């Protein structure tokens, strides 16, 4: 959560923000690794079928690991969105809703960002076109 606030609120030019977000993501990845190391052999199920996945997540340890997985990768995607926005000089107001959606519904936020990025590029093309 703190990682997300930093991503959303600090100036887009700050390099330190990216470093901090990556450290938070790395920390989550370490936690995930530990959880998988401990619980992977204790659950039953697999990724071969929906029933298999449901059975995996019956185990609280693996359920927690799954949640940490979301948190880590959503944060990484958010970091990438910010990076792209800074690189292309996009507005913070275009980025913010995408970050929010990525935080809540990972893939939807990513798709939204791709859409916003596409739109932002098109306005730039329109601006440079001779009248």
């Amino acid at each position, binding site marked *: 959560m703190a990682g997300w606030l930093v991503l959303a609120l600090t100036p887009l030019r700050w390099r330190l923000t990216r470093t901090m977000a990556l450290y938070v993501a790395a920390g989550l990845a370490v936690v995930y690794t530990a*959880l998988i*190391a401990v619980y*992977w052999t204790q659950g039953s199920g697999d990724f071969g079928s929906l029933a298999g996945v449901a059975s995996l997540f019956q185990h609280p340890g693996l359920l927690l690991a799954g949640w940490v997985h979301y948190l880590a990768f959503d944060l990484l995607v958010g970091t990438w969105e910010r990076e792209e926005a800074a690189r292309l000089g996009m507005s913070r107001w275009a980025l913010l809703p995408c970050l929010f959606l990525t935080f809540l519904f990972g893939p939807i936020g990513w798709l939204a960002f791709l859409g916003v990025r596409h739109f932002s590029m098109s306005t730039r093309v329109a601006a440079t076109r001779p009248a």
Partner: protein
Amino acid sequence: MTTLAHPTLVPHAVSPVNLFAELDRRQPHLAATARLFLVATLPLLLALLIDIRTVNDISVWVKPVKFLVSLSLYYATLGWFCAYLPEKALRGVAGRFVIHVPIAVGVLEMAWLIAAAMHGVPSHFNTYGPWTVAYRAAGIGATMLMIGVLVQGILIARHRDVALAPALRLSAVLSAVIAFATTMVFAGYMARYNGHWIGGLASDAGGLPLLGWSRTGGDLRVAHFWGLHASQLLPLAAWTLVRARLPLATAAVWALAIAYAAFVVFTFAQALSGEVFLPGLH
């Protein structure tokens, strides 16, 4: 030309902060592996905190963590001594063997230890089903690790074109021979004995802090530990002697090496007779 410029003739002090930078300069692959193995302890230490499963009455994660630290030291030492070899020796078949085979073998070795911990089963001495195959393969791997040390020692003895204090070179060669010989004999004995406790309780609970050696009887791991870590301790002692510019450093290194080898053999004999290492310690 290189004789004047080379920093290892009289070793300079290295602060712990600069240690990895210095290692990177000496052998980047081994330095990277040493660093990665150390970082890999982080998730495993966390696993140690949350996992309630045990092998020999202690957490299943204690052993992988100990091996990661020990191997990290091993790679750091191997990389450190690469600076004692000329470029042409490192580029040869033996030189490339010293760098690449131990890295590949060590990664496989750790994969096995971590897989065993994940399954909550013993790694060494585990002769249940497919684990037997892994245990046998690990024996070959461990032998490769020690052959790496020996080959490097032989290379350092043969290639003398890098300027180096004679006592330091001697310590690198002698420690390689001692580490190889003692580890082969003691680890080989453990494999045939099919365990490491002699007399005493067959449990790791209540062992010596950090090292985990038995406090109730003999433990063959004591001699194994001191034997293979001769690679670090003897050269460190020699380095201190050379830094202090003491006279007769070479003779002192010989004496130290002989005394050290005797000490390692003593700890082995001690374990064989079922006696505790450091019996005076409570």
